[in-house]
């Protein structure tokens, strides 16, 4: 079946099971020009002219009524809503193209493979990866991080080696390292936070002593803090350490250029950036990925298999065992086109305006405590507490007003311990959030205070 293994490397991207013509069409090397678009109905790009109401109208769920009230969705940090173009793309895939990829030598399978691989190329463009070989499809950020701990970690970390994390990490960037630490005797060290929830970097050089890998969040899912990752990556490289970014909140909300950052690994999820659930990305520098052993074993990740053993496939398929989330990958490709058309600088500035607006109001509400730094240093995440009221009670009362917020520990129990709170309430924003949503939140908080006052 391996009829095309002699193709020049860069053109031989899909596993060697489909025709040469299809290979050439299905995975062009990434170039820095606008990626081909899956569907036509995309928002306009110019910064000053972004019509945010029009953007909002692209999200059908936002016209829903909940408990008799218009839906106010303020939980985009947990998962983002999906624009019509993503829903249409996935529906169109299942209706017209559904077939297993990298398999059949028939039209459907070839078109499915083409769409799957073109989506990979566009996702690579979105974060400015040098090559689509550096874009590994996973299920989500968590799986991307676990891929690194299981493969790079097991191959490179030994007893006494140090991994540097921070006290604001999500459980997904803590527990995999703790598991590896238990298995290998690897030591975990943590960067501290100041009272505002900003990383303390005064002792960065000392903390980097003997560190093999730094793994930190680009943006806190609780505090909204945007970490100075350029500075940390430069210092880490200086100290001889690699850096992985948990960009679950970074890539959906900020412009990310992996080459400019010079980051070694970067993990993110599709569903937090207008794409479907079940699809995530691990970006890795090619030479690192080449050296790493495979992750899960099975179909598609192999080159040859005998009863005695196997040889792994090339990148990126070496890390993609089994039938992947095909429709989801294609859906994420559509989401990336959608966000690109708005422009990530635009996305960030829209969210910062909303964050400033919210902090200006909520900071002056009696009995309300806000957590995290000022608007200039954070993304669209507002964590708060109301005196005398548990966050779950806040969320339940807001729910009765049609307002969705998150309440709990936000998968950051060590951060909750650091802040000395059992839980927090959190409102978070995205491209479809508008001032009216925040006004509704403020009215809802007043209702909570009236009930519990």
């Amino acid at each position, binding site marked *: 079946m391996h009829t095309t293994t002699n193709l020049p490397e860069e053109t031989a991207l899909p596993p060697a099971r489909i025709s040469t013509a299809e290979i050439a069409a299905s995975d062009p090397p990434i170039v820095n020009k606008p990626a081909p678009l899956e569907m036509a109905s995309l928002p306009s790009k110019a910064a000053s002219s972004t019509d945010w109401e029009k953007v909002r109208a692209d999200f059908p769920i936002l016209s829903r009524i909940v408990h008799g009230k218009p839906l106010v969705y303020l939980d985009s940090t947990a998962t983002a809503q999906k624009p019509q173009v993503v829903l249409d793309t996935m529906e169109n895939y299942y209706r017209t193209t559904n077939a297993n990829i990298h398999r059949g030598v028939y039209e459907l399978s070839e078109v499915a493979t083409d769409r799957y691989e073109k989506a990979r190329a566009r996702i690579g463009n979105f974060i400015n990866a040098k090559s689509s070989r550096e874009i590994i499809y996973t299920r989500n950020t968590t799986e991307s991080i676990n891929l690194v701990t299981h493969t790079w970690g097991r191959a490179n970390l030994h007893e006494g080696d140090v991994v540097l994390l921070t006290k604001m990490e999500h459980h997904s960037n803590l527990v995999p390292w703790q598991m590896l630490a238990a298995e290998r005797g690897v030591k975990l060290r943590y960067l501290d936070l100041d009272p505002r929830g900003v990383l303390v970097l005064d002792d960065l050089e000392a903390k980097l002593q003997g560190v093999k890998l730094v793994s930190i969040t680009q943006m806190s899912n609780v505090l909204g803090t945007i970490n100075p990752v350029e500075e940390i990556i430069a210092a880490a490289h200086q100290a001889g350490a690699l850096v992985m970014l948990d960009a679950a909140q970074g890539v959906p909300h900020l412009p990310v250029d992996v080459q400019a950052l010079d980051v070694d690994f970067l993990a993110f999820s599709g569903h937090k950036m207008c794409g479907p659930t079940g699809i995530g990305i691990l970006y890795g520098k090619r030479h690192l990925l080449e050296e790493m052993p495979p992750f899960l074993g099975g179909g598609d990740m192999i080159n040859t298999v005998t009863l005695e053993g196997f040889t792994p496939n090339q990148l990126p398929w070496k890390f993609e065992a089994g039938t992947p989330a095909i429709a989801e990958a294609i859906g994420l490709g559509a989401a990336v086109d959608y966000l690109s058309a708005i422009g990530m600088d635009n996305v960030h500035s829209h969210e910062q305006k909303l964050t400033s607006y919210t902090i200006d109001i909520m900071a002056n509400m009696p009995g309300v405590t806000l957590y995290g730094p000022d608007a200039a240093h954070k993304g669209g995440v507002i964590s708060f507490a109301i005196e005398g009221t548990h*966050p*779950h009670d806040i969320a*339940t009362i807001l729910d*009765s007003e049609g307002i969705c917020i998150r*309440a709990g520990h936000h998968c950051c129990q060590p951060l909750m311990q650091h802040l000395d709170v*059992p839980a927090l309430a959190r409102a978070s924003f995205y491209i479809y959030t508008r001032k009216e949503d925040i006004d509704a939140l403020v009215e809802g908080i007043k209702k909570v205070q009236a009930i519990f006052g």
Partner: protein
Amino acid sequence: MDSIYKEEILDHYKNPRNFGELEKPDIHVEANNPLCGDKLFMDLEVRDGIVQDVRFTGRGCAISQASASMLTEEIAGKPLTELAKMTRQDILDNLGVEVSYARMKCALLSLGLLRLALVEAGVSIAEQMEGES
């Protein structure tokens, strides 16, 4: 639904009954709900298989704390064998409001705590615990 925040529940939350600790409890149990960060502690004084005195402390949402407060009123003076027959429905009936699926764990944390105490006392429980089959 904010209708769960009726006067009686808010009253138990703000003025919990039997709140505190016993100096020499026969039984001390703790339970927590990682979803909310709710925590409950209960002390029991038991003589001749009957609850002589009960106290609880904790921190958490209105539903978990009110449910615990109401439960302590319910169990004081009762034989353990009778308490072993208490069901989830009894707790919900006590609360007297419609509890959503998402908040069920908060409402039933107190029952879990009582059952831990009964196990501690060597009394077997009639109703199966959540998750058992």
